[in-house]
């Protein structure tokens, strides 16, 4: 039985997990690094423990400290969130050995799915379509021969890969060997494992994934599809559910394959099966993410299922409460990842203090936020500030609602990707659903335009403020007790002018 859950994460996902724990009446433990002392998740949990300095390796990635903190606080379960140790089989194993419930799949499954080549082979053997490619352990001559068979352009990928590291696109045979060498080197540096393989590039591919849930009694279902083709440098920016590219027949077929994938490895808890879908409707298994996804919220919005609640139930040894036929998708949901990056400046990270924050709400809008007014964006962690989810009866309504919510969102003090999302929600190709995984990066250039009208408004605002300050400085002492600021009015209203 779950009683007290330690959330081994930070930011919006830690808060999101703590929320559901609180709903279920579970006691909660947060952990934090030096720079996160005032963060939302620290304040939100019942108990909070410092686990080390800011660099992740010394805090959020320290298996020893996390297990030790769980023990000390009396937690009997750990939720890893996403990122950090979420897909680290050693961590899952260490939890098991320490007698703690790891809220995720078994370490063996994490390990198998973490090896991209092994995962490909398992699925291929089970008759699940994978993109044409090679096995691992080939020498350069074998790779050259295989490349000829696969055809160019192709991808060199790291077996232990993730986040685009150790990945290279090769356009012709002449570049193959140097790309292989570079990828090996990068993979070795990043993962301590230089194993690479080759894979055909699926042209015009869309990224489609299925949410799966499995209990400890062999029951596995999927909770529908998501599309995550809006990406930049292999980072998802916008996700939606359902995927516009699927018709009902294809959705059903892919869903069945996703469940089959999960069954092949005896999957438990929540996970995601990722596919590439080409323009002709062929789909290829890519990988399984053995954790909660950032974009799980869009699935929650259309299915009504609280995925963290299901994770906790499954980890507590309960049977799935849903059968496949109970899962019904309703309407459409879109998520925009709001990050501290400057979309006008090549998405350069934007550090600094959030001095003003207003988050949207109202019908069909959900914000999962990891920041607060006064929060300092630090360079140590990823740049996600919050996730904005809009739900609508139709995709069109969801887009309109997203536009409205983006307009309401105010984050002052740092640059964010809000203008990118605004532009995207206005683009005809996005609205029309005409995009693939290269769209955001290759076809979508954001130009900062400063409207003449806005220059005038900004000039007026600054001049009024300067005038006010000048008069304030010159005036004698303001009568005490007079609450000047709230009635801070500078000029007469229309009645004075027009009547």
């Amino acid at each position, binding site marked *: 039985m779950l009683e007290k859950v330690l959330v081994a994460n930070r930011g919006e996902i830690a808060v999101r997990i703590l929320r559901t724990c609180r709903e279920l009446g579970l006691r909660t433990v947060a952990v934090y690094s030096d720079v996160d002392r005032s963060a939302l998740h620290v304040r939100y949990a019942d108990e909070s423990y410092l686990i080390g300095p800011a660099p992740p390796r010394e805090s959020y990635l320290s298996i020893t400290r996390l297990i030790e903190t769980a023990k000390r606080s009396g937690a009997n379960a750990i939720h890893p969130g996403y990122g950090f140790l979420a897909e680290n089989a050693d961590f899952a194993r260490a939890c098991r050995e320490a007698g703690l419930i790891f809220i995720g799949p078994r370490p063996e499954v994490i390990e198998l799915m973490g090896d991209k080549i092994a995962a490909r082979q398992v699925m291929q053997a089970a008759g699940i379509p994978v993109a044409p490619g090679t096995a691992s352990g080939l020498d350069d001559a074998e790779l050259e021969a295989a490349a000829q068979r696969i055809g160019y352009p192709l991808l060199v990928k790291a077996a232990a890969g993730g986040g685009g590291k150790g990945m290279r696109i090769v356009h012709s045979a002449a570049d193959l060997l140097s790309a292989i060498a570079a990828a090996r080197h990068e993979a070795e540096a990043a993962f301590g494992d230089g194993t690479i393989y080759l894979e055909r590039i699926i042209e015009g591919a869309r990224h489609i994934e299925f949410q799966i849930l499995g209990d400890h009694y062999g029951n596995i279902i999927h909770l529908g599809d998501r599309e995550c083709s809006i990406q930049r440098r292999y980072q998802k920016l916008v996700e939606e559910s359902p995927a516009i590219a699927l018709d009902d027949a294809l959705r059903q077929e892919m869903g069945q394959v996703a469940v089959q994938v999960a069954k092949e490895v005896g999957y438990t808890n929540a996970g995601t099966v990722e596919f590439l879908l080409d323009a002709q409707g062929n789909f290829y298994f890519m990988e399984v993410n053995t954790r909660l996804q950032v974009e799980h919220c869009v699935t929650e919005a259309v299915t009504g299922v609280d995925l963290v609640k299901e994770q906790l139930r499954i980890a507590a040894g309960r049977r799935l409460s849903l059968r496949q036929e109970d899962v019904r998708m309703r309407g459409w949901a879109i998520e925009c990842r709001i990050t501290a990056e400057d979309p006008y400046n090549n*998405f350069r990270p934007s550090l600094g203090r959030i*001095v003003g924050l207003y988050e949207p709400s109202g019908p069909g809008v959900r914000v999962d936020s990891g920041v607060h007014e006064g929060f300092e964006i630090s360079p140590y962690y*990823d740049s996600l500030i919050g996730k904005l989810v809009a739900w609508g009866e139709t995709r069109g309504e969801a887009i309109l609602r997203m536009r409205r919510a983006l307009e309401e969102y105010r984050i002052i003090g740092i640059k964010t990707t809000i203008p990118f999302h605004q532009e995207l929600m206005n683009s005809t190709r996005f609205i029309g659903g005409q995009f693939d995984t290269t769209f955001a990066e290759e076809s979508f250039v954001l130009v900062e335009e*400063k409207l*003449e009208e806005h220059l005038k408004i900004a000039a007026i605002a600054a001049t009024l*403020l*300067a005038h006010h300050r*000048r008069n304030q400085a010159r005036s004698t002492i303001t009568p005490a007790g007079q609450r000047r600021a709230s009635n801070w009015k500078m*000029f007469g209203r229309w009645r004075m002018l027009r009547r």
Partner: protein
Amino acid sequence: MRYVTTIEDKTFVIEIKEGEIIVDGQAHAVDMRRIEPLSLYSLLIDNLSHETFIEEREGKYCVVLQGKLYTVQVQEERAWQQTVPPLTPLVAGGEISIKSPLPGLVLEVLVTAGQAVRAGEALLVLESMKMRTDLSSPYDGVVQEVHVAAHDQVTQGRTLVTIST
């Protein structure tokens, strides 16, 4: 009271009278309030509603309007007439320091001292918040010195490379 207000490359002459404001000769009804405790202001110009965030920094006003940042200089008209600034073009033969825009880790150094570089050419690669950022030369020139090496941790504002133009 008349002000000369400069924003980007535009200049407005703004006159503030009792009960009205005249911008380049055009009258507007204006009402501005602060939304405490933030430096947030609600501004009605001829009943059109705008929200803006304003901070004063080093004598200039940083105005955020619809997510975009404008730097605004406000001068009283008399003061302004005395201080029209001369244009200051980049002097050829000068030396430019390329500073780190962020704290982070130097991933790769792409140039060496003595090497000629063109405007826009990448000088080195930084990593911050798990992302790679290329730093490029703003001008054509020659690398004078490289102050950092790969794997160095750098603070914001740290000089990374100097270039002579």
